[in-house]
């Protein structure tokens, strides 16, 4: 049996199901604390510009996780943020601020708005094909990171002798010109604690792959077997290398919807499965579904990780209150017991949890060279 080479990473979605208190803060705080008890790398909260479905609602995901931040201490916070009908400058400010209020635990999952209905909510531009919007999302990711770098870390000097609060040589215009927009800079928000908050892409559709391979720190992929997952990870890493990145710069997580069944969840108790491994069911429009007990889920995670097919899992509990509790107290506890997953957070920031170093500032060398 191959020994897993990398650290196992686990993340969980805390998206609410209707009628479960999803318009109030306590619901999310409770789930975030539960995930933090399991020492998970991060939680995610999905979002879209329009309603999640006819007659349904949801709160702004970045707002919810900002509300969760002071009520938690270590867990990473990754809301979905859309790039199609929003202003890149505002996106940069909001995600940087989430990083400040969480003291270095912010990420964002980039998403586009492809529908005509969403275009009509805003009324500024018509709907466009996903490929075009993902190319633009790549530009947004690029300019957002540049804006984060537009303040050097030591730009604030508070020099009483000269009366200067900042060293303006350490503030930089980004002068970004994309196909669809320009941004002058510098940012309003100083460089966030992590330098660059973590960028995630749900790369479950190949239309996202180019942008994901070029800009993402974390990707979620769709696969129903370790072999398939390994192939997708290889392809994404190959593309990342083509963009001049290290292959390990991408943390690849398998996306799995998790229904941890009824009953006690002891080994072999999952319905209709007997002692056979529980397979993932391919579900159109969503991640593959795992339906079984928490112990078998721990087996599945161990198996995929041992096969070095993925760097970890992003799980979406079907009923968060029920399934996240069983995931943390069942599956994660077992993985911890086996020494496959951390039992506490050795670091403080989301980049620490993911083993990512704090990125250097792209503008500092230019200034040094110009001296």
């Amino acid at each position: 049996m191959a020994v897993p080479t990398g650290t196992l990473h686990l993340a969980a979605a805390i998206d609410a199901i209707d009628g479960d208190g999803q318009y109030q803060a306590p619901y999310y705080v409770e789930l975030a604390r539960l995930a933090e008890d399991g020492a998970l790398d991060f939680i995610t909260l999905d979002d879209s510009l329009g309603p999640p479905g006819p007659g349904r609602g949801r709160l702004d995901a970045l707002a919810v996780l900002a509300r969760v931040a002071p009520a938690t201490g270590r867990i990473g916070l990754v809301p979905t943020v859309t790039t199609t009908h929003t202003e890149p400058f505002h996106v940069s400010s909001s995600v940087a601020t989430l990083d400040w209020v969480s003291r270095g635990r912010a990420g964002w999952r980039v998403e586009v708005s492809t529908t005509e209905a969403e275009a009509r909510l805003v009324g500024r531009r018509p709907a466009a094909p996903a490929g075009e919007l993902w190319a633009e999302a790549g530009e947004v990711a690029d300019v957002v990171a540049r804006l984060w770098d537009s303040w050097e870390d030591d730009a604030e000097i508070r020099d009483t002798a000269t009366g200067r609060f900042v060293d303006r040589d350490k503030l930089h215009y980004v002068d970004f010109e994309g196909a669809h927009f320009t941004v002058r800079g510098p940012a309003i928000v100083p460089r966030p604690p992590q330098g660059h908050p973590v960028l995630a892409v749900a790369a479950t559709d190949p239309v996202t792959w180019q942008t994901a391979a070029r800009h993402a720190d974390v990707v979620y992929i769709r696969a129903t077997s370790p072999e398939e997952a390994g192939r997708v990870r290889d392809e994404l890493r190959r593309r990342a290398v083509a963009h001049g990145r290290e292959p390990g710069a991408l943390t690849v997580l398998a996306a799995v919807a998790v229904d941890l069944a009824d009953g006690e969840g002891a080994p072999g108790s999952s319905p209709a499965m007997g002692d056979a491994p529980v397979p993932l069911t391919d579900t159109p429009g969503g991640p593959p579904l795992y339906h079984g007990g928490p112990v078998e889920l721990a087996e599945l995670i161990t198996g995929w990780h041992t096969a070095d097919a993925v760097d970890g899992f992003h799980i979406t509990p079907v009923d968060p209150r029920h399934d996240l509790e069983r995931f943390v107290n069942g599956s994660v506890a077992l993985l911890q017991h086996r020494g496959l997953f951390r039992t506490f957070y050795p670091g403080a920031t989301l980049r620490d949890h993911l083993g990512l170093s704090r990125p250097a500032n792209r503008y500092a060398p230019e200034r040094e060279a110009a001296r």
Partner: protein
Amino acid sequence: MTSRPKQIHLAAHFPGVNNTTVWMDPRSGSQIDFSSFEHLARTAERGLFDFFFLAEGLRLREHNGRIHDLDVVGRPESITVLNALAAVTERLGLAATVNATFNEPYELARRFASLDHLSGGRAAWNVVTSSDAFTGENFRRGGFLDRADRYTRAAEFVAAARELWDSWTPDGTPRPFAHTGRHFTIDGEFGVPRSPQGHPVVIQAGDSDEGREFAASTADIIFTRHGSLEAGRAFYADVKRRLARYGRAPEELKIMPGVTLVLGDTPADAREKAAEIRRQQVSPQTAILTLEQIWGVDLSGHDPDGPLPDIDPDPESQLAQGRVRHGDPLAVAAKWRALSEEKGLSIRQTVIEATGRQSFIGTPEAVAAELAEFVAADAADGFILVPHLTPGGLDDFVDRVVPLLQERGVFRTAYTGPTLRDHLGLTDPGERG
């Protein structure tokens, strides 16, 4: 039966990106760390304030083509900070300044409704407008709006946001919306259910005629400039008079000037502290720069401790970008010269004297009496306090003045309801569907 005296409303402004904020003081802490926001917000809530207020910046200010570096520079984004503050406060209202020019109704209505839900009904939006191409350079849309259209866009923006906030029935059913106007043509379904306050509280900042009219038509609070008691009464009467035109009662719009305070153990102690703060606010470099903003030319060769320049200002200058103008430069220059000559003041002394003396200076007893007088005389409904220090700038006021206002019976001794509308005595906007 004795009637209760008119009550004072109080708000706290986070010390901002301007030269009211003193960053050279050894007690001055981070302008960015969440702990600074938490300290000020908790202090305001300890003092039973109505709300906590954050300003906004969308482009770093420039002077003579370079980033202005003498004041505080940079700040986190307001709505996100307020969502986090909702976790560490329970009753305090949470007000964010957000520009109507560089946002769209759907997204912003959604963000404020989310804040209102997550804070249990404590959200407020200070609507500001801008039209400058300078700020526009940070945005997709650029500097697209004529100055004359700023308020028509803002008014239509607020109206559209209210349509969105009203689009869900109170029992939780969304109804489609459609808004067609000069600035916005949008339709669909709003993604956030009706929030605890129905509509977040709307604040309008500014004293212009257009601003007053806009406030009278749609705002719950007007954030105005502080002046003399007489000027305050005239402004108050003018704005309240305008409300009837929109079918609104005088108490539906609260008038809250922004004020600065200096407290001392004796009147002399307070005056001394006030003078020291003014010297901290106007460094020698800031004095020259302030002068350059009026004169519109490079005055870096002048001695801040020497006399004012003998040349006249250039009224067409583009030297200062991203800040509010001081008025007609020639008139201001003439006034400052007269002041300098009359009192024999240097450049720095003139700037200290001519700009922004603190609104209230005195012992806690004297300041409490003055604040109460302003409100009793209908020069204001309350105040937005602008401390000069982060994060401790509100401590003294809350510890020493609030109890005196309570003794006078003009300020609450407990929050009576959970929402900001409750604190302000504003009714639910109702359902217009």
